[in-house]
C-alpha cells in the first residue's frame, strides 16, 4: 500500500485499484473541532478536484476535493455520528471514502510522505 498527499491536505492510500481518501492531521488540526462531516454517496463519480465531501468545524465549513478521479465504492458512515473521529484519527478511522481509481497515473502527480512534510513545513 502506498500513501500519497495533496497540497489541499488530503491523503490517498492505494491498495490495488481502490484508493482510501481522508484529510491529513495537519488539516484536521487547522480546522479544529470537527462537528459535522458529509461524505459522498456510494456510486457517485468525481473528477480530480471536484467537491467530494464537506467537513465543518465550530468555526466554518470546508470543502474536501476529490484528490483523484474515481467512483465511490464505500463511504465512512460512522462519521455522521462521530465527526470527532476526524480529529482523533484523521489518517486512520477518520477516512472519508474509498474510490475506484479511474486513472492511476494521477497518483504520480501527488506528493509522498516526505515531500508532503516538506510542503507543510514551508507553510
Amino acid at each position, binding site marked *: 500500500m502506498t500513501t500519497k498527499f495533496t497540497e489541499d491536505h488530503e491523503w490517498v492510500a492505494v491498495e490495488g485499484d481502490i484508493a482510501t481518501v481522508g484529510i491529513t492531521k495537519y488539516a484536521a488540526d487547522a480546522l*479544529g*473541532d470537527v*462537528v*459535522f462531516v*458529509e461524505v459522498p454517496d456510494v456510486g457517485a463519480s468525481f473528477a480530480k478536484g471536484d467537491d467530494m465531501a*464537506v467537513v*465543518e*468545524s*465550530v*468555526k*466554518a*465549513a470546508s470543502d474536501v476535493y476529490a484528490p483523484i478521479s474515481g467512483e465511490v465504492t464505500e463511504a465512512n458512515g460512522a462519521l*455522521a455520528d462521530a*465527526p470527532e473521529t476526524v480529529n482523533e484519527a484523521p489518517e486512520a478511522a477518520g477516512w472519508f471514502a474509498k474510490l475506484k481509481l479511474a486513472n492511476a497515473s494521477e497518483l504520480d502527480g501527488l506528493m509522498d510522505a516526505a515531500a508532503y512534510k516538506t510542503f507543510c513545513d514551508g507553510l
Partner: protein
Amino acid sequence: MADIETTDLKRTALYDLHVAHGGKIVPFAGYEMPVQFEGVKVEHLWTREKAGLFDVSHMGPCFLTLDDTSLTGDEAHKAISKIMEELVPSSIRVLKRGKGRLTVLLNEDGGILDDLIITRPELEELQGTLYIVVNGAVKDQDWALFEEKFAGRATLHRHDHRVLFALQGPQAVDVLKSYFRGCEDMTFMESRHMFWKEARCAVTRCGYTGEDGFEVLVDAEPGRALVEALLTHSRVKPIGLGARDSLRLEAGLCLYGHDMDANRTPVEADLQWVIQKSRRTRADFPGAAKILDQYTNGAAEKRVGIQPLGRAPAREGVEIQIDGTRIGTVTSGGFGPSVEKPVAMGYVASAHTEPGTKIDLIIRGKAHPAEIAALPFVQPNYKR
C-alpha cells in the same frame, strides 16, 4: 513611492500578549485579532464554566460630553440625554447614575445603523457625559454621525486607543474582585469608575456571552499589565473571536452586520424591548412612524432562533423553506458547544415565528429538517 505593501490593519494594545499566548491572528473589523488560542470549543466551554478574557479594544468606546458647561448634575444629564435620544429610541434620561442600557442607532427609515451600550456615569463631575460603546466595524461611521448631528451641542471623545477587555464567566467576579474591590456588589449593566493601582478604569458589569462578567476600559499601558496579571490566574484563559461568536449565538445575541443591519428595524430584529414606553408615546426617534406601525401591527419578517434537528450546521445565507416555499434566511449559524448541537438565527415571514414550527434548511442543495426555537439557546447567567 506608493506604499503598496503596507496594510491598513491596526493592532490593539494587547496584540503582543495575544501572540505570546499562541493566538491565531486574523483580520477583523480593521484589526489584527486572535480568532482562537487553544481551540474554539475548549475556549467556549471554559468561558461558560470559569472565566474567559476577551480583548475588545477594537470596539468603539467613547464619551459624549455636553458643550453647555453651565448645567450640572441631573440637569446636565437630562440635556445630554435629550441630544443622544435624537438618534436612539431608548430612554436615556431615565437612567440612574452608574447604569447603562443596550440600544440601537437608527437611520431615518428606522433601520439599525449599530447596536450600542449607553451608560450614565456615576461620578458627579461626569453628569452631562455619556459613556458609549459602539461596534468596531462601524465605529468611524457612527462617530462621524455623532459629530455631524451633535455639532455645537456635544463633543465626542474617542477612547479606542485604550484597552477595553471583557472578563466573562461564572468565576469572573471572584477573580476580578481582588483587583476592583466592591465590583462584586455591582449588578448587571452597572458601571463605576474604579482604580487599579494608579489607573482609573471604567468597570461595567456586562458582556456579550450570556454569562456574568465585566468590561473594563483602561489606558493602554496599565491595561496591558492588568490583563497580563489576570491571565496568570489558573481560572482565566484568553479567548478568541471564534468562541466569542459561538457564545453570543447560543445566548441569542445579535451580531451587527449579520443578524441586523440598516435594512432591519428594531421590531424586525426582535429588539423592540429597547424602546421604552415614554419614547413610544413621544414617537420622537428616527423612523418612529414605521417602527411604531410595526410595533402595533407586526412586521413582515422577524428574527427567530432556529434549531436544526440533524447535525449539519446551517451557516449565514442558508435558505429557510416550508413545503418548498422560501420563508426566510439564516443570518448566523454554527455549532453550539454548550448545547452540543447546531444552532442558528435568521429572519422568517411573521406567520412562521412560533417556536416549534417545522422548517427546512437548504444546505448545499439538500433540505435539512429544523424548527423555530425560542431564544436564547442557553439561559443567561446575569447578576440582576
